C-alpha cells in the first residue's frame, strides 16, 4: 500500500476516495508519548495516548491549556515525531515514512486549518486554495473548487490577497485549501479561535456539512464547548492523557463534563 501510494502520488493521482479501507480509522494514536526537553526541564506533553479518529466523523479534542492537544495533532499529522508509541494516518505508520513521504502525505491526504497565519501573503485567495494541488503538479477538480468556494461564500474574493480579506474570510479560504485535494483527514487547531460567533458558526457549519455530505473526516482542537458541540464526538485530554470522551455532544453536556474534569 505504501509503495502504491507513493507511485500514485508521483503520477499526480490521489489515492484518497479511490479505495477507502473500511474499518481502518482515519487516524490513530497508540501509546503515544511526547517528551519535550531533557532532564529536569523536560515536559511530558503526551503521556501515553491511545485514541482513534473514525472515518467520516467530526471529532473535537478538548482540554485545558497545555494539556497536549496541539502536540497530539502535530504528531498525528506528521509535523512532529513522537518520543514513544506510534501514530497512524490510515494504514501508514508515520515513523516509517521519510521526510519526502511525509511531505507527500501531508500534501495529498491531510488538510490543515490553523488558528491564524494560514495563508501565503503573496498568493491570491484562489492560489492559496489550490496550493497543495499546484505543489503536487496535479490537476485541479474545477467543480469541487467552485462548489467549495460557493458554499464558503468566498467566490467573489478569489483574486484578493490575504491582507485584503477579513479574518473570517481568511479562515474560510484556509478551509477551502484544506479540503481541495479531498484529503483523508482534516486537522483544525482552534480554527475559530480568532473569529466572532457569527463567523465561527458559518465556518463550523461548513465543516459539519463536509462531514455529512462528503464523508469527510475531521479532527478539531478547541477550547469552546459550543464549538465542540458541532462535532460527532469529543475527546478530553488532561496532562497529556486521554481522560474522557462524549458522543453526540451538546454545549451544555460538554461544559458539564469539563467542570467535572476540572474538579
Amino acid at each position: 500500500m505504501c509503495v502504491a501510494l507513493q507511485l500514485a502520488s508521483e503520477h499526480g493521482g490521489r489515492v484518497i476516495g479511490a479505495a477507502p479501507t473500511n474499518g481502518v480509522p482515519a487516524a490513530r494514536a497508540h501509546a503515544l508519548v511526547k517528551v519535550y526537553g531533557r532532564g529536569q526541564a523536560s515536559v511530558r506533553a503526551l503521556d501515553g495516548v491511545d485514541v482513534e479518529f473514525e472515518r467520516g466523523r467530526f471529532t473535537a479534542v478538548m482540554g485545558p491549556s497545555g494539556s497536549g492537544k496541539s502536540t497530539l495533532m502535530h504528531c498525528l499529522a506528521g509535523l512532529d515525531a513522537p518520543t514513544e508509541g506510534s501514530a497512524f494516518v490510515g494504514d501508514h505508520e508515520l515513523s516509517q515514512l521519510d521526510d519526502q513521504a511525509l511531505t507527500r502525505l501531508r500534501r495529498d491526504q491531510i488538510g490543515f486549518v490553523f488558528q491564524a497565519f494560514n495563508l501565503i501573503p503573496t498568493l491570491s485567495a484562489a492560489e492559496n486554495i489550490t496550493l497543495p494541488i499546484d505543489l503536487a503538479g496535479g490537476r485541479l477538480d474545477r467543480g469541487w473548487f467552485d462548489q467549495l468556494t460557493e458554499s464558503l461564500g468566498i467566490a467573489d474574493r478569489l483574486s484578493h490577497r490575504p491582507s485584503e480579506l477579513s479574518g473570517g474570510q481568511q479562515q474560510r479560504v484556509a478551509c477551502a485549501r484544506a479540503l481541495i485535494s479531498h484529503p483523508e483527514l482534516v486537522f483544525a487547531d482552534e480554527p475559530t479561535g480568532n473569529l466572532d460567533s457569527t463567523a465561527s458558526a458559518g465556518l463550523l457549519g461548513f465543516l459539519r456539512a463536509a462531514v455529512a455530505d462528503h464523508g469527510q473526516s475531521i479532527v478539531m482542537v478547541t477550547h469552546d464547548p459550543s464549538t465542540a458541540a458541532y462535532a460527532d464526538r469529543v475527546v478530553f485530554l488532561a496532562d497529556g492523557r486521554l481522560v474522557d470522551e462524549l458522543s453526540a455532544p451538546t454545549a451544555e453536556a460538554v461544559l458539564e463534563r469539563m467542570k467535572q474534569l476540572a474538579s
Partner: protein
Amino acid sequence: MRRVVVRGMFARKLRLTLTALAIVLGVTFVTGTLVLTDTLNKTFDSIVGTAYAHVSFEIRGATTLKGVGATSPDSTATRGTIPASILGSVRRLPGVAFAYGSVSGYAQFIARNGSSIGNGRALGYSFDPNPQLSSLRLVEGRAPTTANAVVMDRSTADKYRFKAGDHVRVLLPGAPQTFTITGIVTFGNDNSLAGATLAGFYLPTAQRLFDSAGRYDAIYVLAAPGSDDVALQRAITRVLPPGIQVVSGQAIQSDLKQTIQNALSFLSDALLVFAFIALFVGAFTIANTFSITIGQRTRELALLRLVGASRRQVFGSVLGEAALTGLIAAAVGLGLGVLAALGLRALLGAFGIVLPSSSLVFEARTPIVALAVGVGVTVLAAVFPARRAVRIPPVAALGDRTGEAAASTGRRLITGMALTLVGIVLVAAGVAKPAIAYVGIGALALFLATAILSPVIAAPLAGSLGRPLARLLGTAGRLGRQNSMRNPRRTAQTAGALTIGLALVSAVAVLGASLSATAKQEVDSAVNADYVISGSGGGGISHTLPAIIARLPFVTATTAVYGGQFDFEDSLSHLGAVSTTGLDRTVNLHITHGSAAPALAAGELLIDSTTAADKHLHVGSVVGVTFARTGSTTIRIGGIYKPNPLAGSYIVGASYFLAHFDHPLVGAVLFSVRDRAPGVAAVLDRAKATYPNLQIQTRAQFQASQQNSVNQLLGLIYVLLALAVIVALIGIVNTLLLSVFERTREIGLLRAVGMRRRQVRTMIRSEAVIVATFGALVGIVVGGALGVALSSALRTSGITTISVPVTSLIAFLVVAALLGLGAATWPARRAAGLDVLGAIATE
C-alpha cells in the same frame, strides 16, 4: 520558545558576520594597498639610499627642457652628456677626495640556452672599482679592466649559473658581443637592483659600447672628510662649463625618493579606487541589512519607544550596532590586509607589473586608516536606516504591521526622472564636446537616478524577468517570483550592489573592446609593413639591426622608429622619428596637408591634425623646439596627418632625430618583403638567434599583440572589480538569509501543506536568480551605455572605433544569474532545513 530565542540569536550572529564580511573585504583591500605601497616605498628608498650612500656631489648635464625639474633624475632621456675633460679639473680641486666619471646604457645578458635574460630593466654601466664611492660591491673575482671583461650581478649569476671565468654574450646598443665574466657584484647588500640585471664594464669599454667616447653621463664626487660642502659645491661650479651642473647627493636622494613616491602614489591611488568601489558596494549591503532588520524589529523598537526610549536613544542604538560591526570588520580586514598585500603583489606580477619583494612594512597610519574607513563606511551606511527606525511611532508596537512602509512612488519617479534627464544631457554634452569630465558627472547622476528609480521598476521588471522562470519551475518558481516582487525596495537595494559592480564591469568591457578595436584599426590604417620588430621585455633594439634587415635580399623597404622627449613650444612632449626611405611601403601616415617622406627628409616636422587645430598651426608654420643635447632651435611644419596613437603627435626624420639625441635606442623596425619570397622565416629565425630579445612579428601578429596588451589590462581591471561583485553577492546571501528568517512561518506553512524540500530550495533560488538578473541587467544596460559614451568622448584621445562586446555583455548576465543561483545555496538549504513544526510555532 527557547528554540525560537536561540534561533533568533543565531540569525543575528550570522547577520553580524555577513554584514561585517562586506566591509572586511573592502578594508582588506585598503590595508593591502597601503602595506604594499609602503613596502615598495621603503624598498625603493633603501635602493636610492644605497646608490647614493657615498656620493657627495653629482655633476651632470643641466636639462634645458621645460617639463623637467632642475634636479630631475632621468638623466639619459632628458639631459646631454658631459665632456670627460671636466673630470681632471674636478679631481684637482682641494676638498675632493675622489671623483670618477660614469656612463650607462642598455646591456642585456643572453643565457646559455640562447634566450635573453630579464624582463625588467637590463642596465649596463661603467664599473668603478673604488669601493669608497660605488654602491656596487665586488663579492667574487676582480673588476673588469680589459675590453672584453664584464661583471655580473649575483642574482643573475645564481639564477643562470654563471661564475667568474665564464663567457657570456651581451646584447648592446650596437652589435652583440661576447665577454668574459671577471667578477660578481652586489648592489649594496642586495643581489640585484630591484629586479634589474647589471652588467659592469671597464670604463673605456663602456664609453665605446654606449656611444660616449670622451664623454660621461655623470661624474660622482666624494668630498674629503671635514671639507665644507657649500664651499666645495661653489668651487666645483666654478670649474664647470655652462650647461653643466653640480647637485648634492642629498638633493638627488630626496629628489629621487620624491619621484618614486609620486609614481607609487599613482599605483596606490589606482588600487584604492577599486578598494573604495568595493567599500561603496559594501555600504549598499550594510544599508540594506540594517533596513531589513529594522523593518523586522519595528515592534521591538516601537515597544522601546512606548516604554520611554527617546528618539536619540533609538538612533544611537542602531548606529552603535553599526559602529561595533564596522570595528570588528575593520580589525579582521586589517589582519587579512597583510595577506592581501602579498596577493596584490602576485596579482600585479601575473599581469606583468613586476615589483621587488622584501619584508612587509606596516606603518602606523595603516591601522588608523583601516579602522576609520571600516567604522566610517558602516556607520554612514546605517544612518538612513537609523533615521527610519527613529520615525517608527510608539503605537506601532500595538499593530502587527512588520515589513517596511512603501516609499512615495510619485516623488521617487519625479526625482529619478529629473536626475536621469540631467545625466543624459551631461553625458550627451560630454560626448559632443568631447569632454570626459561631463561624461563622468553625468554618469554619477545616472547612477544616482538608477538607485532612486530602481525600487519603482523593481517589481515590474523582476516580475517580467521571473515569468519564464515561474512557467518553467511551477509553483515554487512562481512563489520565488512573487517573493522577489513583494518588497521592491529590498529587491532594488540588494540588486543595487550588483548593479554598480556590473555597470563598472560593462563600462570597462565596452571601453576595452573599443580600445582593442581601435588598436586593430590603428595597425590596419597605419602599418603597411609585413613585419614589425620590437624589443621584448624592456630591452632595446641594437642600432645595427635596421641596416642588417635592409640588406636582406627579400626586403623591399625598412623603417627604423625612434622615440624621445623634447620641448614643443615649451611643453615636454614625445617625439617620434622614422627613417624616410621607402616610408610609404612600411607606414601610412594619412597626410591631410603637406607631405610625409619629402618633408621628413628635408628636416621638417609632421604633426597630427588635433595638435594642429589645438595650436592653430598649419603647413609652413615655424615653431620653437628644445632638445636636451642641442638646446633650442626652430623647425618648419612640413605636414599634417590624421591622429593615430601608434604614431604619436610629433614626427621627424631619423637623421634629424639622431643629430639631436645622445645614443638613442631603436624602438621598432618595420619592413616589407617581396611577395612569396622564399626563406624569410629561416632568415628571421637566424636574426632572432643573434638578437634573442627581439620580437619579430608579422603584421597580423603585431596587431594581435597590440590587442592583447589591451586585453591584459582589461583582465587586471576585471580581477580588481571582481571584489565589488563578490561583495554584492554577499549582499544577496545576506538579504536572502534575512528574508528566510523573516518568512520562517510562511515557509513552515508551505511545508505543512505539502511543499517538498526541493521545492523550497527552488523557491529561494528562483528569487535569487531573479534579483541577480535584475541587478545585472540594469547594470549592464547603464554601464554599457556609459561605456559607449565614454569611448566616444575619448575619440580625440585615441579611441577611434567604438565596439560593443555583445557576447561578453550577455555572458556577464548569464554569469550573474548563475552567481545569484550560487548565492542562494546556503539560504535555500537553511529554508529547506527549517523544521516544519518549529516554523509554525514561531511567535
